[in-house]
């Protein structure tokens, strides 16, 4: 009798924890919205927020209809094939199916929404709606199945605790392909190839967004334990998450200060996000000191990434590719360096005498995911481009997508001074 009561209350406690984390991850959607809105011009703000809002709606429905079945249903090593519309679906953890589903659906929404920022200020709304349904119902779940749903990478002991690869590399790589196919915003690069500043319209909104994301990450990473246990795992994950973000913010600020002479807030904030993305995969497998190192390197990567993209004339308005793509990659391979067998990893990382075994698995896994996303998203975006078109007209881009796509402004009654 007592045994049974303990059992029920443990499941109850775990369910409460997973649902609480799901709610936090859902709130990250607001964070993404604010960051992206703040980093773009006022005339496109209504458009980006509509995209952020609708992609979560699309992700929820897409993940209910097909996504969950592909990601967690029984099938082969490539994809799951059972549990369409959750009919006959089973939970992937000890918590009830619906709690597990909600947590996973919130993750799916996060992967989808990353792309909005990279393709901001010029992508057609209709094209975005179609893209967001396809990535949530099909592309993201396939990668998810490989790693979390018992697919071929899971069988190889590839480790990704909370989704540096599954969520962030997927979103970041899709954003990279999208922004390359869309081409830069008008006047972003001069005829001599030099980048011009297209300043974001609200640093306060962007800052609020970064704080919300940081807050939401306490659900994203610790929640991925999917159980409370004795509390030690979620405590480790929580402290690692926080330390990496802080270290990323500091290292990015120092970098940008040294390189450009001023501590640029927007870059420091990108650095904190980079630290968060980088620690997402290794957060359960490393010690706190390693989290600081991983986060600091993330902050450096994000600055170099932004500069590199501008050199290559790839226009990524909010830094989605350096933050999510490059740091998703870095976080994933960091497991192979700093990971510890004693914390539940299959093999010790390179710095703990485990050699290149885990590192090799990590590299193979994240590279396969990148290749898969490059191919699949190129096809998706090209198909959208030839059917309804990816990019708005030049005139609409100059007027702003708020009026062009939605017929309403983000700041009615305000005078917005448009100079470029």
């Amino acid at each position, binding site marked *: 009798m007592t045994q049974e009561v303990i059992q029920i209350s443990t499941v109850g406690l775990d369910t409460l924890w997973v649902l609480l984390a799901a709610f936090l991850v859902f709130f990250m959607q607001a964070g993404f919205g604010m960051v992206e809105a703040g980093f773009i011009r006022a005339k496109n703000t209504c458009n980006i927020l509509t995209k952020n809002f609708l992609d979560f709606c699309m992700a929820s429905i897409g993940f209910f209809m097909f996504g969950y079945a592909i990601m967690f249903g029984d099938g082969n090593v490539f994809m799951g094939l059972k549990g369409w519309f959750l009919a006959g679906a089973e939970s992937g953890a000890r918590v009830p199916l619906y709690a597990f589903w909600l947590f996973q659906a919130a993750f799916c929404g996060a992967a989808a929404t990353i792309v909005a920022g990279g393709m901001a200020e010029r992508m057609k709304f209709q094209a975005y709606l179609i893209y967001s349904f396809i990535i949530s119902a099909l592309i993201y779940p396939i990668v998810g199945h490989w790693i979390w749903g018992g697919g071929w990478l899971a069988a190889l002991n590839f480790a990704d605790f909370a989704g540096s690869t599954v969520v962030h590399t997927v979103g970041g790589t899709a954003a990279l392909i999208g922004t390359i196919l869309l081409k830069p915003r008008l006047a972003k690069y001069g005829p001599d190839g030099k980048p011009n500043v297209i300043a974001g319209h609200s640093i306060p909104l962007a800052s609020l967004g970064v704080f919300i994301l940081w807050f939401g990450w306490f659900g994203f990473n610790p929640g991925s334990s999917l159980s409370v246990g004795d509390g030690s795992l979620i405590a480790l994950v929580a402290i690692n998450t926080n330390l990496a973000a802080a270290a990323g913010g500091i290292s990015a600020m120092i970098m940008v200060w040294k390189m450009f002479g001023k501590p640029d807030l927007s870059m420091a904030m990108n650095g904190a996000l980079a630290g968060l993305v980088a620690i997402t995969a290794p957060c359960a497998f490393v010690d706190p000191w390693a989290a600081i190192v991983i986060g600091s390197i993330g902050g450096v990567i994000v600055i170099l990434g932004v500069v590199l993209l501008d050199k290559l004339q790839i226009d990524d308005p909010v830094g989605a590719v350096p933050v999510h793509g490059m740091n998703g990659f870095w976080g994933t391979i960091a497991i192979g360096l700093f990971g510890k067998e004693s914390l539940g990893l299959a093999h010790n990382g390179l710095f703990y005498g485990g050699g290149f075994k885990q590192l090799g698995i990590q590299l193979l896994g994240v590279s396969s995911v990148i290749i898969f996303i490059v191919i699949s998203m190129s096809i998706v975006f090209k198909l959208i481009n030839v059917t309804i078109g990816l990019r708005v007209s030049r005139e609409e881009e100059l*007027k*702003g997508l708020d009026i062009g796509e939605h017929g309403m402004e983000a700041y009615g009654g305000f005078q917005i*001074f*448009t*100079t*470029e």
Partner: protein
Amino acid sequence: MKLIVALIQPHKLPDVKKALYDAEVYKMTVTNALGSGQQKGYTETYRGVLQEVNLLKKLRLEIAVNEEFVEPTIEAIVKGAQTGKIGDGKIFVLDLGECIRIRTGERGQEAIG
């Protein structure tokens, strides 16, 4: 000396600036303006309700020039701002009585520079 005042579509500013730079006119003042002309506005929707917007957003360019620059400046503005559709704007050319550069106290043609 003339003062050229032009009212243009906000989204044509990059093109106008480029045309002016090509004509070697680098000095200008730009302000936000609201106005209506022949077009009599457009409609927006807000929460399902149609809204007539009759004062449209325009930009007001002011450029003070010496005589020899009047025609090139006008041509450049027309070239940059013209779409052929209603709402392209207007250019006014006014006589300019005096011009003083505050930094040096120079007056007249030199002050316009």
